[in-house]
């Protein structure tokens, strides 16, 4: 079966007065139907920019697609007209962004925004579209949906607005739902409810999901597979259990080590990744994480490693590393002992 989404060698740059920002560098991956992919990374990792770029949502200029293909159900999104893309966005591909206030139109009621979207992408008439809109608000558990649908975005609390955003994201039963830090600004109890709801939607509609976050805890619960990005590149990709139990990229390992777990409370100090995130104006010749990586080899500094199968791990666990992390960790433990 062909994958639902296939990103091939996507490279995105921004031309700014300060120079060219190399935001996404040669990113390739495939997403199967029904899969939930958690993309983890920090600011500048390219995790958000690459999905915006592939759906035609970056301003051009200053943004520029340098190269690549994005095959969605066999069609290259990067070659489609703005009109065709608009048909896909909100229809086949739904979005949920971090800040609902900037994505919702403040002067239109929620009803207007939902009904217009549904009518643009389906053949439903006004009455049926309204019924569908109310049903969607009920699915995202907005109490008293039939009354609240007539309200404006500012009349909803932050958590309720984010639910409205999710209702909009899934309104047309998209094949693919892309959520970018969709629960980051929310309180943990609301976040837990929304994650539960997304799991229900997956079960009910078989939706394929890309969940972008910096929170390793969130993706541990929702994702089938994890993709770790850094400096505009994919550092590691694989099944969720393999990434957490047997990380092969020093960056993923460092992120997991820096989390304050029960064991680390007794050690009295958190593992910290030294240094600062990379300067995207001056992309590294080699592995972008190498300057912060205690296990880097001389080759890491001068040549970007390819993303390839991690030796001795499960199939589909890919890593971009010249160094051998398990061997390096073992050697370090022996030195300490």
């Amino acid at each position, binding site marked *: 079966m062909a994958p639902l989404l296939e990103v091939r060698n996507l490279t995105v740059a921004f031309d700014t007065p300060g120079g060219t920002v190399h935001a996404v560098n040669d990113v390739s991956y495939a997403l199967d139907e029904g899969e939930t992919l958690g993309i983890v990374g*920090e*600011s500048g990792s390219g995790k958000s920019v690459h999905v915006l770029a592939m759906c035609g949502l970056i301003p051009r200029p200053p943004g520029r697609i340098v190269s690549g293909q994005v095959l969605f159900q066999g069609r290259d999104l990067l070659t489609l007209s703005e009109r065709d893309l608009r048909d896909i966005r909100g229809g086949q591909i739904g979005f949920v962004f971090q800040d609902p206030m900037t994505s919702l139109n403040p002067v239109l009621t929620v009803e207007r925004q939902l009904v217009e979207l549904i009518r643009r992408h389906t053949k439903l008439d006004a009455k049926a579209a309204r019924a569908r809109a109310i049903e969607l608000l009920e699915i995202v558990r907005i109490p008293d949906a039939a009354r609240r649908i007539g309200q404006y975005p500012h009349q909803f609390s*932050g958590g309720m607005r984010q639910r409205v955003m999710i209702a909009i994201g899934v309104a047309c039963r998209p094949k693919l739902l892309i959520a970018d830090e969709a629960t980051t600004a929310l*309180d*943990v*109890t*609301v*976040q*837990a*409810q929304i*994650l*539960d709801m997304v799991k229900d939607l997956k079960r009910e509609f078989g939706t394929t999901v890309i969940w972008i976050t*910096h*929170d*390793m*805890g*969130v993706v*541990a*619960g*929702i994702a089938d597979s994890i993709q770790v990005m850094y400096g505009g590149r994919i550092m590691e990709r694989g099944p*969720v*259990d393999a990434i*957490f139990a047997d990380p092969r990229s020093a*960056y993923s390992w*460092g*992120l*997991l080590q*820096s*989390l*304050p*777990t029960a064991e*680390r*409370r007794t050690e*009295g*100090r*958190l*593992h*910290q*990744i*030294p240094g*600062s*995130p990379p300067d995207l104006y001056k992309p590294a010749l080699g592995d972008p994480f190498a300057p*912060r990586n205690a296990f880097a080899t001389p080759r890491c500094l001068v040549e970007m490693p390819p993303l390839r199968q991690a030796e001795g791990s499960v199939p589909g666990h890919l890593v971009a590393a010249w160094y051998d992390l398990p061997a390096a960790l073992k050697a370090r433990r022996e030195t300490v002992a």
Partner: protein
Amino acid sequence: MSTSPTHPLLSVRNLAKHYTSGGGWFGGASHLVKAIDDVSFDIAPREIVGLVGESGSGKSTTGRVVLRLEEPTGGEIRFDGHDITSLPARELKAFRRQMQVVFQDPYAALNPRMTVGDFVAEPLIVHGLVTSRSERSDRVAALFKQVGLDPRFMTRYPHEFSGGQRQRVNIARAVAMRPRLIIADEPITALDVSIQAQIINLFQDLQQELGMAYLFIAHDLSMVRYLCHRVAVMLRGRLVEIAPTEAIFSDPRHPYTRSLLSAIPIPNPAIERARRPLAFDYETQKPAPDAVLTEVSPGHFVLI
């Protein structure tokens, strides 16, 4: 209520901050918003107390009122035994030196037109703690080293720094006054994950070197559990539970605390798949207006 065995550094009793909203010239019913209501807690010298709760729970307001950046509408704030609740600005100044603040957004807190060195030196000058230019420069250089910044960066401007470095600059300014209490309001929330551990380690190192106490306001409960000695939980302006950290996490008593803890995502796929968050319904489970903090086990207080 006594929550610490030693003489408290900060003691807050029945603190309230109420606003009236609505009403006004065009009529309409005005109603009272209790941003914080009847909040009482102590912080001992060198103690780290975490203050957690959802947005709108009043945790930031509590920090601001304790610092008297906002005026309380009721209750009492004592610092080192002195009642500072209604001290006039002139007399408050001496206490302000001893209570510093670190905010969430490290860039917004900085002055973009001031070199970071001058920004760190500013409170030293205001409080007359340095007399000569060379003394000032030496002090700032020492502070930079203390927070892990290269003193050669003193003449640079905030935009030349990363988020983590900017937060280090803010921390340097806060510790410049040798405060006894730092109120840190979500100090790592805006930082990248790979940088958060650096800043938490810095807070911990400084606390040990300088013997400060912290009120650490946060919503990342796993970091609170790691860093804090005691944890206080707020719900819609009221403090519903306060206890030693491990007691809160292993034996939460208030239904809201239980719900909050059950919702924390754990970076472990097996645990996450099995997690069932506990619901909390404010309308049916909210604290009674006359509820009081009651000691249920040594040092463990619950609003019942």
